């Protein structure tokens, strides 16, 4: 009854909360997407090895000798052929053609790369052939940088054709181009690798592997779990977007809160006759106050649902890029729950004072007012 009356004012609360939740979830979809991409590309049995104190893969340099030594490390898994599943990888950055911003990375991988990327799948064309100037492109890079199978990419040794497109379960690898590591290092005249990806016998084998590296300072490398490394790489950006989302949502929520207070006062005033009648019939203060609170909370929840649906329709699954990592924006259930919690808070705080006014309405004055009107 309360909800059905004055739909215009009810819409103010609904749309106000929809704005707060919609904007918050839209910005948080960047955070959720980055975290999802980081987790998707990582396997709990994988460890990544970088040069000591290197700020990231791009700034890390690992010699061939170190790479060979890592094959002997304890805890490293071996394939059916008896060889250690270790991939020494090289990363080459290049400016994407036709884009004034961003950096596209070509990752050189060896023949042991595939067991390390369990979700890797060719979706179009074929994989590059070792020893030949060929590339495979990730579906993320494909979507963002307008690349397609058959295009060519200019590298130091000339034009390399893209012969296939791959997916890797939405992981970070999808932002990059893949090539044969030996061919790429020969082409770029690099004499070292950027990182070494290692498959461990089990996730628990990491400690032994890390200890072994620490006891060999001559290697000048450090090991980190792959998932942890990816999450750390995007941590400053996830913190930035989360903070931005909550900062914006706080200001919007303050506006929506005042709007909600305004509307709920108006709705209590408009229902003075109904509230007085209920009190004459014996309804206590609590049920009347609860009816006002519940009305506001229900309106806020409707608003939160609209905001969440809008954010989901507009942003969920869309490809985006943050500092050279392509990923899909993601409106996650976790953040939707956070949005609903905000909506309930706005509804509750925004109706507390109007609810108090409703229970404090003097019956005689209320009756007089309703008779006069």
């Amino acid at each position, binding site marked *: 009854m309360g909800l059905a009356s004055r739909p*215009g004012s009810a819409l103010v609360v609904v749309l106000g909360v929809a704005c707060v939740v919609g904007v918050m979830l839209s910005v948080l979809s960047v955070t959720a997407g980055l975290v999802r991409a980081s987790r998707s590309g990582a396997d709990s049995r994988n460890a990544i090895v970088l*040069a000591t104190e290197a700020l990231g893969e791009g700034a890390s340099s690992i010699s061939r000798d170190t790479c060979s030594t890592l094959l002997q490390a304890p805890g490293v898994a071996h394939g059916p052929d008896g060889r250690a599943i270790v991939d020494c990888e090289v990363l080459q950055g290049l400016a994407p053609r036709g884009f*004034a911003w961003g950096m596209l990375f070509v990752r050189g991988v060896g023949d042991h790369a595939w067991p390390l990327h369990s979700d890797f799948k060719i979706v179009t064309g074929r994989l590059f052939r070792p020893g030949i100037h060929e590339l495979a492109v990730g579906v993320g890079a494909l979507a963002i940088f307008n690349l397609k199978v058959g295009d060519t990419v200019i590298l130091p040794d000339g034009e390399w054709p893209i012969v296939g497109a791959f997916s890797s379960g939405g992981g970070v690898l999808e932002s990059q181009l893949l090539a044969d590591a030996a061919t790429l290092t020969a082409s770029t005249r690099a004499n070292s690798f950027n990182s070494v990806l290692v498959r461990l016998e089990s996730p628990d084998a990491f400690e032994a592997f890390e200890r072994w590296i620490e006891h060999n300072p001559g290697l000048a490398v450090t090991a980190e779990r792959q998932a942890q490394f990816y999450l750390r790489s995007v941590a400053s950006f996830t913190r930035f977007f989360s903070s931005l989302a909550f900062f*914006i949502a706080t200001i919007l929520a303050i*506006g929506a809160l*005042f*709007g909600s207070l305004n509307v709920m006062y108006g709705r209590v005033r408009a229902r003075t006759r109904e509230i007085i009648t209920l009190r004459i019939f014996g309804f206590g203060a609590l049920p009347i106050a609860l009816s006002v609170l519940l009305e506001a909370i229900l309106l806020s929840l409707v608003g939160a649902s609209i905001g969440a649906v809008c954010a989901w329709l507009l942003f969920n699954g869309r490809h985006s890029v943050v500092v050279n990592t392509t990923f899909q924006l993601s409106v996650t259930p976790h953040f939707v729950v956070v949005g609903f919690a905000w909506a309930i808070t706005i509804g509750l705080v925004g109706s507390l004072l109007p609810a108090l006014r409703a229970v404090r309405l003097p019956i005689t004055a209320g009756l007089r007012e309703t008779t006069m009107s």
Partner: protein
Amino acid sequence: MGCTMKYLPLICSALLRRPTETILTFLAVTAGFILFASMMGLNVTYQRAIEGAREDRLIVVSRFPATLGGLPIGLEERLRSVPGVAAAGAWASVCGHYGAEQQFTCIYNVDDGMQAAFPFPIDPVDWNLLMNTLDGMLVSRKAAQAMNLRVGDILTVAVGAGVRGDGSNSWPFKVIGIVPDSPEWRHGYKVGNLKYFQNNRPLELQGLIGGFRLGLTDSDHVNEVTRRIDRFFANSGTPTQSFSAREDAANSYRSVVDMALLTRLVAGAGLFLIVYLSANVIARAVQERTAEFGVLQAIGFTRIQLMALVCAEAAIPCLLGAAVGTWLAAMLTTVPNRWLPAGVDIPEATVSSAVFGAALGAAAVLALFSSALPILMLWRRRPAELLAAS
């Protein structure tokens, strides 16, 4: 004056009829405009940073950036001889962590040519001191304050393996002067001596630096010079990629996320929130006072005058809210960074007079939008119908 005196009591009584409602509307509008002005101000900050970056200065880097290498220092002389280039300076950064909290920093090491190509606001005495002190470093005031550095302090940067020739992970720099800040370096800068960088590099990387910065003779031919340089080195062992400092500034804001789009979207959401709220409040106020408008029309007020009254009633909280909201946004520019976690940084919004004007303009448009429906309702009804509403 007489006209104002005639309408003012009517507008005041309309606004004070339900003071709580008016105050709450004003507060909601204020909150909306804090967001609007902050977002527009942020946009102005980005735009100013881009426009402040010089179009006639070029940055030249390797087209295929290598992990530890870059471009050979020998290119500097060749770049100076390219038609259109007035000056050239070489640079290389030493980046790493410092201090117990492992904070990240970069020291920008330059050669003597940099002061002509891409000048820092450093006086010649300090500059000469830097060029004559191998391990010296000049720190701008903002950077010195942030890192708590004073003249004579040693800043030791922990660098990656293979960065230094001696195998060490520590790269010490001695603070030899605190110098003025530059608008191009938002967080301040730390500038070192390129010779010190080169002397400490591994043998196979000696002579390789991060890139060059060039001063041009004429800002009208930037694209031409850029093409000339990149074409000249295209088939060499070290192909280059050149772009103007302005393009670099624009790319740096675009590479994280399209901030212009984001700020406009959020500002739009703030305005949408306000417009719907104030429209609802005005519609309700007009509906409740239909008979009053009928009486006013009966005693000689024209429809246009009634419309003006409704508009003024909507405009006052909107304009006041816009003014106070924008003022608060200007006061709060430093708050987000205090509130954000360490390592996360949002540039301070520039709440300029243009932003203030935009906020007031938006408030006026919002007032018009908010009062459009109530005005239409009044317009369609005859005085007798309005009076009958009582």
